[in-house]
């Protein structure tokens, strides 16, 4: 068995070698030599919080990727590579010379981050890589990896699709290239540059080994990120804040009274989002964005990429603050509504969906652990969290748009650390808090404040579900607080 295995490995390596050798022949100007002066290994040690016990961090793990030096002495990487990093090291591929570095800016939305070495002299002798222009489906590009000795390994591939696709943050879609390339598993293949004609065309952020397909953050998104970085205040990527349905169904088109071709149906709006604020309503039909007509699937004709989803225009080409006119059909009337583009405000979210470096907030009262509902918390239930996590919480997270705008954060009694004060409450978990001492609870800060004003010597905590309410002895939990901290080795009883 073992020998067969080895044989196969050898064969695979051969194919890859062939691919690499043939690369320069097909791609006349990949110029890896010059690119090698722009690449650095990035070793990031990351540690994420344990959401079930938000006062501790999970064991650290490390990720390795390749950073690309760009103009301005910055090193471009994916946000995921350095998410929740505790220590980041830059390493020159050939000499293994090292320097520590810090994250200058990270944006999970576009999955990009820039690093700056602690010692600027570390970059001397290196050349920044220029950004390439737009590509077309079928164009060739080369993904670069590093061999242990610092040599560059190249894998040539072709762009198989250019579309607006989902990014790991799940906060909304941005432009995405897919590059078909038989990438080999190498140490540090988490973040990789892709080049063409010696210029950066994007960063590999995901690789699907089965389909040999790499997801690439294209330069259009990188340029937007860098432009925001150079502006006085970084805002990131604006969103219309709406969901739409294609208008392909001829019966639906006849019912609406749509005579011209194209148009999409507004099926949902984020409360206080850009479209909502501008007065777009559910049921409106959007016919054109910024003067560009939309087809029945929501695509417009982009000068660079051809037919592509309108959100490329609204999210990436335009910057926050831009005013975009939308041509809509409402009750048989055509209107033009100007929409001021805003960045989605996570503080207004009822359940945070973003990846985040922030330490999760919590409050522990007498042994009752309270946290805020968030997507990362639900994901602690594992890959099937949507079906295995408590369905009420999953529902609140998925349909937070339908809750009242002033709902605030959803505060959960996540678990009980048994103490003499919590006798009889040990089995309570994942129930939603409505009030504490009569005060409505819309944030953990509310809860912490309300707990400072016990009523008749009791902390009364009310819930949406059974047991509906419970009491704690305010004086007793106060005097047991130090014991509780010591007993369960809690660094603090709250983090707001």
């Amino acid at each position, binding site marked *: 068995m073992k020998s067969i295995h080895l044989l196969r490995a050898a064969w695979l390596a051969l194919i890859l070698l062939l691919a690499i050798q043939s690369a320069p022949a097909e791609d006349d100007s990949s110029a890896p030599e010059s690119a090698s002066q722009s690449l650095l290994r990035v070793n990031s040690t990351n540690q994420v919080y344990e959401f079930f016990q938000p006062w501790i961090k999970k064991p650290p793990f490390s990720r390795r990727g390749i950073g690309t030096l760009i103009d301005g002495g910055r090193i471009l990487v994916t946000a995921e590579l350095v998410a929740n990093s505790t220590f980041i090291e830059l390493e020159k591929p050939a000499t293994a010379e090292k320097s520590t570095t810090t994250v200058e800016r990270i944006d999970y939305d576009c999955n990009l981050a820039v690093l700056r070495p602690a010692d600027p002299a570390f970059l001397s002798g290196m050349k920044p890589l220029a950004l390439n222009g737009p590509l077309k489906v079928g164009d060739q590009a080369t993904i670069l990896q590093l061999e242990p000795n610092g040599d560059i390994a190249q894998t040539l591939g072709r762009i198989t699709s250019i579309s607006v696709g989902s990014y790991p943050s799940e906060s909304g879609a941005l432009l995405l290239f897919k590059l078909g390339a038989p990438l080999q598993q190498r140490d540090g293949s988490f973040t990789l540059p892709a080049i063409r004609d010696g210029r950066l065309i994007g960063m590999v952020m995901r690789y699907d080994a089965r389909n040999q397909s790499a997801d690439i953050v294209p330069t259009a998104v990188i340029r937007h990120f860098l432009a925001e970085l150079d502006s006085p205040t970084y805002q990131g990527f604006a969103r219309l804040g709406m969901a739409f349905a294609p208008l*392909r169904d001829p*019966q639906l088109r006849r019912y609406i009274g749509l005579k011209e071709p194209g148009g999409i149906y507004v099926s949902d709006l984020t409360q206080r989002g850009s479209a909502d604020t501008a007065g777009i309503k559910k049921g409106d039909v959007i016919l054109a964005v910024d003067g560009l007509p939309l087809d029945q699937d929501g695509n417009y004709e982009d000068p660079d990429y051809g037919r592509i989803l309108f959100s490329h225009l609204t999210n990436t080409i335009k910057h926050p603050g831009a005013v975009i006119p939308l041509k809509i059909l409402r009750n048989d009337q055509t209107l033009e509504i100007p929409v001021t583009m805003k960045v989605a405000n996570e503080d207004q979210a009822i359940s945070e969906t973003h990846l985040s470096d922030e330490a999760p907030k919590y409050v522990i009262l007498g042994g009752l652990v309270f946290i805020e509902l968030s997507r990362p918390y639900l994901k602690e239930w594992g890959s099937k969290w949507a*079906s295995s996590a408590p369905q009420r919480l999953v529902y609140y997270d998925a349909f937070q748009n339908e809750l009242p705008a002033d709902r605030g954060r959803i505060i959960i009694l996540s678990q009980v650390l048994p103490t003499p004060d919590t006798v009889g409450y040990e089995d309570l978990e994942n129930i939603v808090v409505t009030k504490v001492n009569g005060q409505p609870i819309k944030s953990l800060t509310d809860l912490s404040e309300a707990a400072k004003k016990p009523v008749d010597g009791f902390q009364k905590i009310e819930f949406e579900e059974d047991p509906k309410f419970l*009491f704690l002895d305010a004086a007793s939990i106060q005097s047991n607080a130090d014991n509780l901290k010591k007993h369960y080795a809690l660094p603090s009883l709250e983090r707001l």
Partner: protein
Amino acid sequence: MSRFPLIAFAFLCTVAALNAVEISKSLIRIEATSQEPNYKTPWSPGDVSSGVGAGFIVDGKRIMTNAHVVSNARFLTISKEGDPNPYLAKVLHIAHDCDLALLSVENPAFFKSTSPLEFGGIPEIESVVSAYGYPLGGTRLSVTRGIVSRIDFQPYSHSGMDSHLAIQIDAAINPGNSGGPVMQNGKVVGVAFQGYSGDVAQNVGYMIPTPVIQRFLKDVKDGHYDRYVDLALTYRNLFNPASRRALGLEDETTGVQVCSVYSGGAADGFVKPGDVILKIDGHTVSSDGTIPLENEAVPLDEVVERKFKGEKVQLDILREGKPMALTVPLNEPWPFKLQSNLYDEKPRFVVAGGLVFQPVDQNFMEAHDPSDQRLNYIFDYFVADELHTYRPEIVVLSNILPDPVNAYAEEFRYSVVDEVNGHRIRNIEDIATAFEERTDFYIIKFAGGGRPIVLERKAIEEARPRIRDRYAVTTEKNLEK
């Protein structure tokens, strides 16, 4: 509490041996052919299957067995020991909530040289009992013996939602034992009904005890089974000293905290969340919710369990620190049983334009196993969040029989229907009524308010024979249970 197990055992052994001869005059073998409806193709009559169970003759020329032995039965034959002839039988009464049924036999000759069994009480823990039946389908009587291991409230798996008193015994109980009598001292002390598969637990079998059986027999005396009545409230232990003081309980007093009182239930309008139940029908309630009854600590629910529709229950409560006495009438059983398994019911549905609409219940969920998050929430929290006040029935678009008329509807599978042509959909009948209206467009709106499905009447009518033919839809609606 000192015992002489050896002697007791030997004594009971003789009794049991005597019984084995006696019992052959009362034990019945039941062969049931049943047809289980298919909730994925609700217009088809369903697959036919057959099974074997046990039963025994009781007073009044009736045969007692488990509900699950004769559920969805289309054809029933029974036979008795020493007479190989099959006799036709019919279901007289069936109680799915406590897994019991009574059968009648058409041919009176069947009862010749048989004798009905009598019922005993609750057997003592550790006392020996014998279970009779036809485990694994054999044709000859089988006896297994064991002791009473535990007397407790248990979920009854037939309905999946009801819990009643049940007795755990360590006599081997296997499929085919179901419905058979469990005997002690010549009397029936239980009906064998459920156990665990061997990989979960061994020597754990359950029987339905006589209080549950007697209640069933009393309930059907008027010729109709009325089901269990329920207070329709939830309660919780009151161990916590702070909660006890805050609710005004004195040191020695015990009771439980009322959490939810479901609207439309028996306690609605009488009991309030936050009340403390101190006594039920005069029985003092412990802080864990149990009461002493017949030398056993049983959940306070047992008092209500033994009552019937139209009876009353007395509650002594503490409300805001003040003692009060309440009399709660038990009028109707809790109406929202959609989370329990349903039997002997036909699936209800409406097909229009190749769109299949169905009301959601446990049978539906089991057949379809939808992963729609909104539907799962509405189903799981239908009672707890009182969603039934808005929609007494959850109606979903359960399937799309593909046809040009519904070419763009696939994304709406398992969406909950809110409105058709502006009419709120409260139950499946509303769907049928809405599609009877003559209008050019049918506008179907779903919970969450995305885009509607629009179907033109013209297109529906054109598609109708096509869809009936192609998908063998024998009937386009059924509104009868």
